[in-house]
């Protein structure tokens, strides 16, 4: 559904991503893993169009969207749920959600609002409250719900677990999985929480310093020693009962 080839984006003179190629397959959850500053968010921003890539090509349903602005890609059905709960603070929850359907002209908006409330019952209870007064987790739900209101074909999710309690993290993970299964929503998920990402993802990319260093089926990624060691924190005891101190990643 969505293909990016050889993307390069810069913040001023600094290259944030260099030569990233990836694909989000229809109906699948693709995940991008990586540490702070690996360029994960930049990849999503480049795809949705809030950053223009210096090089490379992005195609969405065979249409070239490389230089299309973020508001236009949203109208084409790409919902970008940005990192850090970017809600409209002084509007109430319902207004926030309805704005998610801003570009839509069809009459099913009301129905979709009910569906979002069904996924996130908390939002229904608070529908008339200002978004600024919601808790962090609720704001995150609101951001995802607002993305759903677009009736997107693909959703770009940027760190939905950031700053949430463990219970909320697993709740959000369940909902992402449900969205994927019940509505065949294609998802491109960016996460630092490797366990969450590998548990719900189908196909995974690992990013480091602006490059994709590994891509594999999520099941197989979980088995990889590098991922275990550096992302999941599962440590090998070593042959003499001590860790080898010179452990290196195989891609280095």
């Amino acid at each position, binding site marked *: 559904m969505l293909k990016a080839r050889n993307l390069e984006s810069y913040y001023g003179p600094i290259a944030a991503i260099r030569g990233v190629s990836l694909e989000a397959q229809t109906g699948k959850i693709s995940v991008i893993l990586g540490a702070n500053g690996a360029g994960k968010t930049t990849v999503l921003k480049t795809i*949705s169009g*809030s950053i223009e890539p210096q090089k490379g090509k992005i195609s969405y349903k065979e249409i070239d969207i490389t230089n299309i*602005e*973020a*508001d*236009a890609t*949203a*109208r084409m059905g790409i*919902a*970008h*749920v*940005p990192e*850090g709960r*970017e*809600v*409209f*603070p*002084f*509007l109430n929850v319902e*207004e926030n959600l*309805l*704005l*998610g359907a*801003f*570009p839509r002209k069809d009459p099913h908006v009301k129905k979709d609002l009910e569906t979002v409330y069904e996924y996130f019952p908390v939002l229904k209870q608070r529908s008339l409250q200002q978004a*600024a007064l919601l808790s*962090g987790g609720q704001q995150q739900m609101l*951001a995802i719900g*607002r*993305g759903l209101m*677009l009736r997107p074909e693909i959703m770009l999710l940027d760190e939905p677990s950031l*700053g949430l309690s463990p219970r909320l993290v697993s709740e959000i993970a369940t909902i992402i999985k449900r969205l994927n299964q019940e509505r065949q929503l294609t998802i491109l998920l960016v996460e630092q929480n490797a366990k969450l990402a590998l548990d719900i993802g189908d196909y995974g990319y690992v990013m480091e310093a602006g490059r994709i260093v590994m891509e594999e089926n999520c099941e197989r990624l979980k088995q990889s020693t590098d991922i275990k060691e550096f992302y999941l924190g599962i440590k090998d005891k070593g042959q003499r009962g001590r860790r080898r101190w010179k452990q290196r990643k195989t891609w280095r």
Partner: protein
Amino acid sequence: MEIIQLLISGMSQGCVYGLIALGFVLIYKATEMVNFAQGDLMMLGAFLSYTFVSVLNFPFMLGIIAAIGSMAAIGAITERLAIRPMIGEPHFSVLMVTIGLGFIFRAASGFIWGSEPKTLDTPYAGQILKINNIIIGYENIVILMATILLCASLVLFFRFTTTGKAMQAASQNQLAAMYVGISVRKINTLVWAVSASVSAAAGILIAPVSLIDPQMGFIGIKAFAAAIVGGFGSLPGAIIGGLIIGIAEQFAGLYLPSGFSEVTAYIILLIVLIARPHGIFTSMHIKKV
């Protein structure tokens, strides 16, 4: 009786300040820049209404609607040509552009209409309403009514229309607005159009009270003070700030030594800035992580 009369003329003057302040605030909220040509947009609106009504002999209401409509267009064109290319430039440069725009508007209107003051022929000119001993000029009543009407329609527009909601959204969180598919550029152009037409309305309202000349835009500075007093970024605050300054000016003119009425606006501004640095009405949102 004197007090009531002062209050009414102060309120009507204050409404005009408030409307121009509203123009400042609208643009500030949407684009986070201060448009120092706001007073000059008001002046252009007054001149256009003069042209339509007194020169081209349009019926009064039609002439005013035409003037406001053309100011909306001028606002939109100004944004498109002068402001949009400045996106991403430092605030200071954008500010200089708006100051420059003010000079251009003033020079252009001097060139077109001459520097001699003009008067707008209104159907209500010179009429007065007398209740007991209070004498109120019709133009003051018109100013008050028109301001209430204008504010009410703005409130309705922001509350109940999709475009109004989208404007609020874009001013609260530009990035998120883009991600839901709102074209922030179009919204900014629209905001300039709305702001210019609100200022034009202010110019038309004040035209029968003061005269129309290219320098009349300088009351924009007092309106700027009003916007700060009200808490820059608050729409009701802009009107309230205008009213405070307008009323205080009238009282200072009568009860304080001459010269005070000219500086009252700035004295109030200083007091408010010392006592409540964010203005009287503020809508601050500090993002929590």
